[in-house]
C-alpha cells in the first residue's frame, strides 16, 4: 500500500507540474498580455512600457519559474480588473464553490447509490423502472431549466426558499438539488450495472452458500466491489461540479469561483483566470489521488499494481 501511495503521489506531482505549465502558457495563448493590459486605446509605446514593466519580455522559462514560485506561496498576482490581489478574490469566492460542490456530490451519492442498489436487486421491477425514469429525466433535462422550474415552484409560488445569494444554508438547497441531480443518472446507472454484475458472480454464490443474511451479502460482499468504478466517476463529477457550475452559480447569483472565472474571461483578466484554472486543476489532481487511494483500500488487488 505504501509503495502504491508513493507511486500515485509521484504521478500526481507530475500531472500538477504539467498542468501548471499549461496554465501559465494561457497568458500567451489567449493574446499578447501586454496589449491586453494596456487596453484598446494604448499606443505602441505604452504597450512596450507595460511589457518591460511586468517582465513579459524575459525568457518564458524564467517567467514560468517566477510565476510558479509565487503561486506556491499563494501569490497569484493582482487582478487587472479589480486591482486586488487574486488570492483575496479566491479566498472570497472559493468557499461558496466548495460548499456547493460538497453538498451537491453528497446529495447525488445519497440519492443514486441506494437507488442503484435497489434497482439491481430487482431488475425490471417497478423500482428499477422508476430509477430509470429518474435518470432519463435527469439526463434529458437541462440544468438551467430544472433550476428555473425549482425557483418558480419553491421560490416564487410556495415562497419557501430564497432564490438568490449565498448568505444562509437555505440559499444552497435549490442549487444543491439542481447540481446534484445532474450527476445522479451516471452514478446510479454505474452502481446498478456494477451491482448486477457482482450479484451474478461466483463469490456472491459462495456467500449465499454460506447462509449469510441478505444485508451482509448485499452490503459487505456485493456493494464494496460494485462501487469501485463509482468512486472514480464520483471524483470526476465532483471536480466538474466545482468548476463547471457557472450556469447554476449565475442563475442563483451564488458568486463562486466558477462564476468569477467566467466573468474574468470576459474581462481578459488573465491572472484571475490562471489562478482559478490552476486551483481547480490542482483540486482535480488531489481528488483523483484520493479516489485512487480509496479504490486501493476497497480492492486489495489494486494495491500491488
Amino acid at each position, binding site marked *: 500500500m505504501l509503495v502504491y501511495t508513493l507511486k500515485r503521489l509521484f504521478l500526481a506531482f507530475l500531472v500538477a507540474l504539467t498542468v501548471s505549465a499549461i496554465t501559465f502558457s494561457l497568458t500567451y495563448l489567449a493574446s499578447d498580455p501586454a496589449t491586453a493590459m494596456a487596453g484598446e486605446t494604448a499606443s505602441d509605446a505604452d504597450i512596450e512600457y507595460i511589457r518591460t514593466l511586468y517582465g513579459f519580455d524575459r525568457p518564458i522559462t524564467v517567467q514560468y519559474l517566477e510565476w510558479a514560485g509565487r503561486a506556491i506561496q499563494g501569490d497569484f498576482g493582482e487582478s487587472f480588473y479589480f486591482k486586488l490581489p487574486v488570492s483575496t478574490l479566491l479566498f472570497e469566492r472559493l468557499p461558496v464553490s466548495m460548499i456547493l460542490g460538497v453538498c451537491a456530490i453528497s446529495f447525488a451519492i445519497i440519492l443514486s447509490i441506494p437507488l442503484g442498489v435497489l434497482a439491481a436487486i430487482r431488475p425490471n421491477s417497478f423500482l428499477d423502472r422508476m430509477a430509470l425514469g429518474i435518470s432519463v429525466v435527469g439526463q434529458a433535462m437541462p440544468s438551467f431549466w430544472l433550476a428555473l422550474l425549482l425557483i418558480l415552484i419553491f421560490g416564487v409560488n410556495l415562497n419557501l426558499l430564497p432564490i438568490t445569494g449565498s448568505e444562509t444554508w437555505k440559499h444552497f438547497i435549490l442549487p444543491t438539488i439542481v447540481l446534484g441531480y445532474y450527476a445522479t443518472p451516471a452514478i446510479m446507472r454505474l452502481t446498478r450495472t456494477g451491482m448486477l454484475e457482482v450479484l451474478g*458472480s*461466483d*463469490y456472491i*454464490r*459462495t*456467500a*449465499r*452458500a*454460506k*447462509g*449469510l*443474511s441478505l444485508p*451482509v451479502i448485499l452490503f*459487505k*460482499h456485493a456493494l*464494496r*466491489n460494485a462501487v469501485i468504478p463509482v468512486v472514480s466517476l464520483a471524483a470526476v463529477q465532483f471536480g466538474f461540479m466545482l468548476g463547471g457550475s457557472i450556469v447554476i452559480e449565475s442563475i442563483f447569483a451564488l458568486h463562486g469561483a466558477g462564476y468569477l472565472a467566467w466573468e474574468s474571461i470576459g474581462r481578459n483578466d488573465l491572472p484571475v483566470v490562471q489562478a482559478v484554472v490552476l486551483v481547480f486543476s490542482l483540486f482535480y489532481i488531489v481528488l483523483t489521488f484520493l479516489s485512487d487511494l480509496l479504490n486501493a483500500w*476497497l*480492492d*486489495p*488487488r489494486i494495491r500491488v499494481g
Partner: protein
Amino acid sequence: MSAVLEISGLTVDIPVAAGDLHAVRGIDFSVDKGETLCIVGESGCGKSLTSLSIMGLLPKRAKINADKMQFTGTDLLSLKERELAAIRGNRMAMIFQEPMTSLNPAYTIGNQLMEPYLRHKKSSDKEARERAIYLLERVGITAAASRLSQYPHQLSGGLRQRVMIAMALMCDPELIIADEPTTALDVTIQAQILHLLAELRNEFNSALILITHDLGVVARVADKVAVMYAGKIVEAGTVEEIFNQPLHPYTQGLINCIPVPGKTARGSRLGSIPGIVPTLIGDIKGCSFRNRCGFAHDACDTNDPFHTLNPGRGYRCTLDVPACEANAKELASA
C-alpha cells in the same frame, strides 16, 4: 440408518427464449452418513443444477419440483429462505467448480473463512479464528495463521480450492457437495485435492456428494455412483456394481473411455463417445441416448423404462439385463 439426503422425482426447468429447458428430468438418489455418492456425466447433463437445487441456490427463474427432497428428515422444499439460510454453510456446505472466482477479492481469507462460523455458531472471534487455523492446517496449508491475512489473489488455484474446502468444513456439516472441485486445477493438484476430500470425509464422517467428469476419480473415492445423461439418471449402483457390471450403453462407453496407462493418449477425456446430446428444450420422446447408442432399435424411439434391480441399483434401457451384459462384452472387445 436414515439417509442424510433423500431425493426423488427432482426436476429443474429453466424458461429460455425457445421454451422451457428441462435441465433435470426427474432424478432419485440418497446419501447416508459417511458415504460418498459420485454423480458422473458429461457437460450440460444437469449435475450443477442438481447440486444447486439441494442448496437452494438455483437461479431465480429456475423452477424446481420434487416428490421428495429431505435433508435429515426435513423437507427442503417447504423451508422458507430464512430457514434454508440457517442450514446452508452450517449443516450442508458446497465446494464449487471455480476456485479462482469463488472467493471475494475484497476480503482476506481469514475474514471469509470465519464468516460462516460466526454466523451459525454465534462464536467469539477467537474461537472462529482458531477453528479457521485448525482447518487450514487440516487441508494441508502451511503457515496457516499467517494465511488468514492474505487475499485470494495472493493464492494459487490449488490453495484457493483448499481454502474453499476448509470453509465448507467450518461448521462441521452433515452433507458436503463438491461440484467438480478439481476441473479447474492442474492434474497433479487434482489428485491431491481429491485425496484430501476422501480423507476428510472419513475424518468428519459426513455425507459427500462428489460431482465429476472423471470415472477414474469415481473408482477411487465413490461408494455409490449415479450416471447422468440429459437430465436423467441412466444408471445407479455401488461402485463395484457400476464397474463390474455396467448395464447402460452410456456407462459402458464411459468405462471404455477411461484412460489406461500406456494405451491412452494423455489429455483424452471422458465423453469421447461420438455424437451429441439432444436439446433439453421441450420433451424428449423415448431414450435420450438413442442417437449415440450402438444398440438402438425401434422400441428406443418410444420407450424409456427404468429398471430397479434392488434398492439403489438400476438402469434405464429398453433392453433386459442379459442383453445389456452381452453389449458390455461386445463393447469391451471392440
